[in-house]
């Protein structure tokens, strides 16, 4: 008789939750930091896994579409940094406000924009989350203010720190320290690379940004700190990006392939979570594989949509210059070409 291998697990076989030791944070002007253990329920684990995997595959798909020249202009990919935006999002509320710089796709997804709308925005179609008018660096949704292209002027950050501290504003300043500013390593660029201390009179945390539980606990801690009226706090997430700064940067002229490989094999955020879940009986290998398959399918469908959806209609060119304004005329490339501007 032939043998049939049946792989089936009764969900009662899984643990409901597990407790993990997490790396303690470095503290600046804080007596206590976030907890050094974290409880992960099965449900949370599956959610974090799926979210991070979705972001990972979405970014890889964007890489592909960019190389096929279906995505144009700038494209700054987030793969490697998934634990940062996911850990943050699960620690804060949907009513909290988030703003970021140009490496924004992960945050856009975490804040609730569906993959198909992100990809369609990257391909410049009318189904994009901002109708194709913004592109990679300018995606928005409720309580998410982008996506910004011109960032960083150091002076402005210090002015902001001053005002936030003076007025005790409930603000978490997050630095995703991925070791490089474009092609310059942090050691070559910064007089001090302890970014979590750079708020000076503002307390700070340095967090392992490759561990979603670390990020979650730190973000929870930071959010509670702010909500308690204690003022702003700085959070430095130590993370890594596998891609270069943008799609025009191969990312290997200023760092070695070995370095990238090492991070991938030892610190990948998705692998870290997967191993934890499997080793602690929170999920099975097959189950996670099923999630992978479902994610791949979702990304494929989104990419299909993003490549077949039509471009925005020409009438859209003049719209949304102002808000809440009666319609007016906008001049095109000459005085005879006019567009209508609707709010």
């Amino acid at each position, binding site marked *: 008789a032939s043998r049939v291998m049946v792989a089936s697990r009764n969900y009662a076989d899984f643990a409901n939750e597990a407790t993990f030791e997490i790396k303690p944070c470095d503290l600046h002007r804080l007596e206590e930091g976030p907890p050094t253990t974290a409880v992960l329920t099965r449900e949370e684990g599956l959610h974090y896994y799926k979210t991070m995997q979705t972001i990972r595959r979405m970014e890889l798909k964007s890489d592909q579409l960019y190389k096929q020249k279906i995505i*144009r*202009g*700038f494209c700054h990919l987030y793969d490697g940094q998934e634990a940062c935006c996911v850990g943050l999002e699960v620690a804060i509320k949907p009513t909290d406000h988030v703003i970021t710089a140009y490496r924004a796709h992960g945050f856009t997804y975490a804040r609730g924009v569906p993959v198909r709308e992100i990809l369609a*925005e990257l391909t*410049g*179609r*009318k189904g*994009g989350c901002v*109708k*194709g*008018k*913004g*592109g*990679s*660096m*300018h995606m928005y949704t409720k309580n998410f203010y982008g996506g*910004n*292209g*011109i*960032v*960083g*002027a*150091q*002076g402005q950050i210090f002015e902001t720190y001053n005002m936030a501290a003076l007025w005790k504003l409930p603000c978490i300043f997050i630095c995703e320290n991925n070791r490089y*500013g*474009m*092609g*310059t390593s942090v050691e*070559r*660029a*910064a007089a001090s690379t302890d970014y979590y201390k750079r708020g000076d009179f503002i307390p700070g945390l340095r967090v392992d940004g490759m561990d979603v539980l670390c990020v979650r606990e730190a973000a929870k801690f930071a959010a509670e700190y702010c909500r308690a009226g204690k003022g702003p706090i700085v959070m430095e997430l130590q993370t890594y990006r596998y891609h270069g700064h943008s799609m025009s*940067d191969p990312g290997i*002229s*200023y760092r070695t392939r070995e370095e990238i490989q090492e991070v991938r094999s030892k610190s990948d955020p998705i692998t870290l979570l997967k191993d934890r879940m499997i080793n602690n009986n929170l999920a099975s290998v097959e189950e996670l594989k099923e999630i992978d398959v479902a994610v791949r399918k979702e990304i494929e469908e989104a990419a299909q949509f993003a490549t077949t959806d039509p*471009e*925005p209609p*020409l009438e*859209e*060119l*003049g719209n949304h*210059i102002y808000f809440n304004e009666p319609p007016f005329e*906008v*001049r*095109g*490339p*000459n*005085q*005879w*070409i006019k*567009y209508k*501007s609707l709010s």
Partner: protein
Amino acid sequence: AGGEILLRPAPPRQAAVSLKRRDGDRGAMRPRVTVRDALNQALDEELERDERVFLLGEEVAQYDGAYKVRGSSTPPSLRYGMGFTGIAVGAAMAGLRPVCEFMTFNFSMQAIDQVINSAAKTCYMSAGAIPVPIVFRGPNGASAGVAAQHSQCFAAWYGHCPGLKVVSPWSSEDAKGLLKASIRDDNPVVMLENELLYGVPFEMSEQAQSKDFVVPIGKAKIEREGTHVTLVAHSRPVGHCLEAASILAKEGVECEVINLRTIRPMDIETVEASVAKTNHLVTVEGGWPQFGVGAEICARIMEGSAFNYLDAPAVRVTGADVPMPYAKILEDNCIPQVKDIIFAVKKTLNI
């Protein structure tokens, strides 16, 4: 001299679409040189010529410059800021001759106080005691698909300010000659390059290959002679005007194409002389229409002798009056195209 100077030649780049040979270019050795290589030649030559000249910029030493034009490297934490621009201006005041590169002029808005209040106005405020011999250079205007925050044209903004000189090259000769002239000029010069032109090869005359070749600041160039209408442009639109002129020539309309080369001080005399001949004027620019380069040209023509020679109102072709959208179809309709120039010419000639 200060600053790191990287002596690595720019890596060879794939040439983009070649321009057609202009009529009359025969004979002598005319190598095709990309704008990027022409800029690098100019920097090489001026660095060698004067030890006070040094380069300062963003991501240039190892990243090969954002667009592969080389220079020394400033930490990217300062890259968009007042910081490195202020350092450059101070160095100029102290007697050096910095060439300060912005990744694009969009980022110069972070540093604009240094450009205007420290660089442009100081000679005047000090009654000539403190000159500021600095060059600010970098890509300006629309690229392809880089959306609203990275596509603005600053010709009108900088052209507005007394104390600054503002140049806007089109061809490789323009780029090389104007950069050399800018570095040798004792005043702050803003050089507005164009990202899409960096990879475009142009023929370089023998003259242009000399180490002392400069294109004078404040002098426009007639790229194509004509009798029916004057087209005035700067930067990439000069190429579009020449294309439009080729197409119109087949219909018997001969356009005179003027490459402004300098925004400030503007060579309005060349435009006036041309209008006196053709009686019709179309200005073309990438920037927004309001308070733009074309608006200034029209105002000056009205104020001067050429007004009496106009047979029809002057027409401006510009970028659309909206922040630059990302989607290709929208972006294409926001940038002045060859068809828009042809349309404007026919409108003004009433044909």
